């Protein structure tokens, strides 16, 4: 889609194989396999309760999958089996960051502090695990300034620079969503997982989000895995779409391919394919305007 893409290496960053997740009697995910390519935006869509968030929770270590293998390959070729790492190690070592469907900010900390907490591991090391920093030795001071500088850059990208010193809980909803993304980016991820970032945004905010996500992909080369209900966002920015229903993959391909897949249309609208294909088209067109 973007001109840069052709020159970018197109290898796989995330490979999910035969993933299953069972909650008691419920198979929330059933033998799911999917791939996300480096430097692309991969969208994961599906009706409510399809298991999208559960996939995210398995990838980011918040759930231990019942079965399956999740492989993450970093730029320099290092590979991690994510199902074997615990949640914080996945961010720290494998460099996967995420946001949450119901926003989880540190509401009593300021916007800037939220972004500094995200750089914890880097700063911890620089402060000699606190001891050197307490004594004023080592490179902590420089690193701390660098962390604030990085935070400032992301605040500017997310259009939050004016609110930097306000408590995060005081921001309007759309700004909180952007802050959560900026915070995840401050961990320096190679893969960014966003759980419904456009939920509850007005059209203007939704447009700003598209710009932010595009700039993250194009400027930092971070790959994005995106759960989204808002079709205008999905069709506009994603390079690749995976559709889930009842924990199983029902379609996989380019946005255009998926859009026209009768199975997808049936899943979304729950009625006969042919009858509602046009309706689906109308809806998609309407959404992008």
């Amino acid at each position: 889609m973007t001109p840069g893409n052709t020159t970018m290496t197109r290898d796989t960053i995330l490979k999910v194989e035969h993933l299953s997740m069972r909650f008691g009697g419920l198979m929330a995910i059933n033998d799911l396999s999917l791939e996300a390519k480096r430097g692309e935006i991969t969208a994961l869509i599906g009706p409510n309760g399809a298991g999208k968030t559960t996939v995210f929770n398995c990838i980011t270590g918040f759930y231990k999958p019942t079965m399956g293998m999740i492989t993450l390959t970093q730029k320099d070729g290092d590979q991690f089996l994510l199902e074997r790492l615990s949640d914080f190690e996945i961010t720290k070592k494998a460099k996967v960051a995420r946001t949450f469907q119901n926003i989880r900010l540190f509401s009593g900390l300021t916007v800037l502090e939220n972004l500094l907490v995200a750089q914890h591991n880097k700063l911890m090391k620089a402060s000699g695990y606190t001891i050197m920093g307490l004594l004023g030795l080592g490179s902590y001071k420089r690193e701390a300034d660098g962390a604030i500088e990085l935070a400032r850059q992301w605040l500017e990208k997310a259009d939050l620079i004016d609110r930097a010193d306000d408590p995060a809980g005081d921001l309007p909803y759309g700004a909180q969503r952007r802050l959560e993304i900026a915070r995840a980016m401050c961990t320096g991820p190679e893969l960014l997982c966003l759980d419904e970032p456009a939920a509850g945004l007005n059209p203007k905010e939704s447009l700003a989000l598209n710009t932010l996500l595009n700039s993250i992909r194009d400027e930092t080369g971070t790959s994005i895995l995106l759960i989204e209900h808002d079709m205008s966002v999905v069709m506009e920015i994603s390079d690749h779409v995976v559709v889930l229903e009842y924990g199983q993959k029902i379609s996989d391909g380019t946005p255009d391919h998926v859009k026209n897949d009768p199975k997808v249309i049936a899943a979304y609208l729950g009625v006969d394919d042919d009858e509602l294909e046009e309706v689906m088209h109308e809806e998609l067109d309407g959404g992008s305007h």
Partner: protein
Amino acid sequence: MPNTNSSANETAPGVMAQAVREGLFAGVLAFGMFLLYVGIETYQNIDNALVWRTRWGLLAIFVLVAAVGRFLIVGFVKPRLDRRKLSKAKAGIPEVSDDKGFFHKNFLKLSMLALVLYPPIVVSLYGVQGSLKFVDNFGIQILIYVMLAWGLNVVVGLAGLLDLGYVAFYAVGAYSYALLSDTFGLSFWLLLPLAGILAAFWGIILGFPVLRLRGDYLAIVTLAFGEIIRLVLMNWSDVTGGTAGISGIAKASIFGIWSFDVGADNNFAKVFGLPMSSAYYKIFLFYVILALCLITAYVTIKLRSMPIGRAWEALREDEIACRSLGIDTVKTKLTAFAIGAMFGGFAGSFFAARQGFVSPESFVFLESAVILAIVVLGGMGSLTGIAIAAVVMIGGTELLREMEFLKHVFGPDFTPELYRMLLFGLAMVAVMLFKPRGFVGSREPTAFLKERKAVSGSFTKEGHG
């Protein structure tokens, strides 16, 4: 202003009627509540039989205080507060900036100066022997609690982990000093850091099994831990002396140069040709605990602006978000526990050196509760607020001891210090009513881009585990 006055005058009759009504109601309520507790007293007569007598006078005082107090609050205090709020709202002053003027920068400097000058001033006013009470009971006693509360603040106020057994670390520090100085004759200055390290070590030992728990469960297990330590101290008589405790603990010396032992050649008073008095030791201890408090404050303030301190606060706000940012929450909690425990250990070894005697009785659950109450009343996370709360609560209870005149009001059997808990309860209720986030409810951000704005207490969380 004229229009606010006239509006107040218009509503005045209605307000007065309401005040009288509420005052009467409060009186009736107080009568009902206190009739049995205060109005009737049981006592043993010469034959050891339990008999009862009435105390109508005292009951009347209680009822009157309730009735008149309620009347005054509804009739006068409340309208005035409302009016002030209104005029402020009109002037467009946001309420958040309210207490900013009071806790001004100079406040810290002035209070520091006052603390440093406190012993000389008291000595010059009351003489060396007369200063004892003020330096020891008010000065040292309050500062010990300030230090304990600041230590607990790291765990509860910053990291949001509810620890009801904090006094255990205080006990570990005290017994570490008592036992090690008794057995090996090591000096206070060596054992002080050692006691802190031992307490921190126990903090980590407690932390490991406990930190998987959250909220109420964490509180209960830490409470149990505090009791276990106390029971071990009580029952391991061979080592700890059981309920009798350990007495004759060595005093601290001025870095080994001057001692405070009466018999020693380098006794402080002897060397300087001063009259013998225990007051010099207490004045010395005052400065020691003041220095310890300052170290605690310095370290806490420093840590808050470092990644570990920010991680503590982030943990209090949202643990899951912390993990999603790659923060090892178990390690982070353990460091909070260890650092908090370390300060408790310092305070404990100081306590032992001051008392010259330790027994399990000093480390009951009530102590943990009092320290926690100070943290909550002061405002979780705020060092200034906590210091003020300690002064009010501990100073207040010490003041009660001084209130001999109350005996003339309530009769010769009245022991004011028994009403300590009543004071605590009243203060708790009052603060929670008027300042639900404690004296200082807002939090100072640790970093800023343009300007440092205090974060209102309504955004911060108390933590959940």
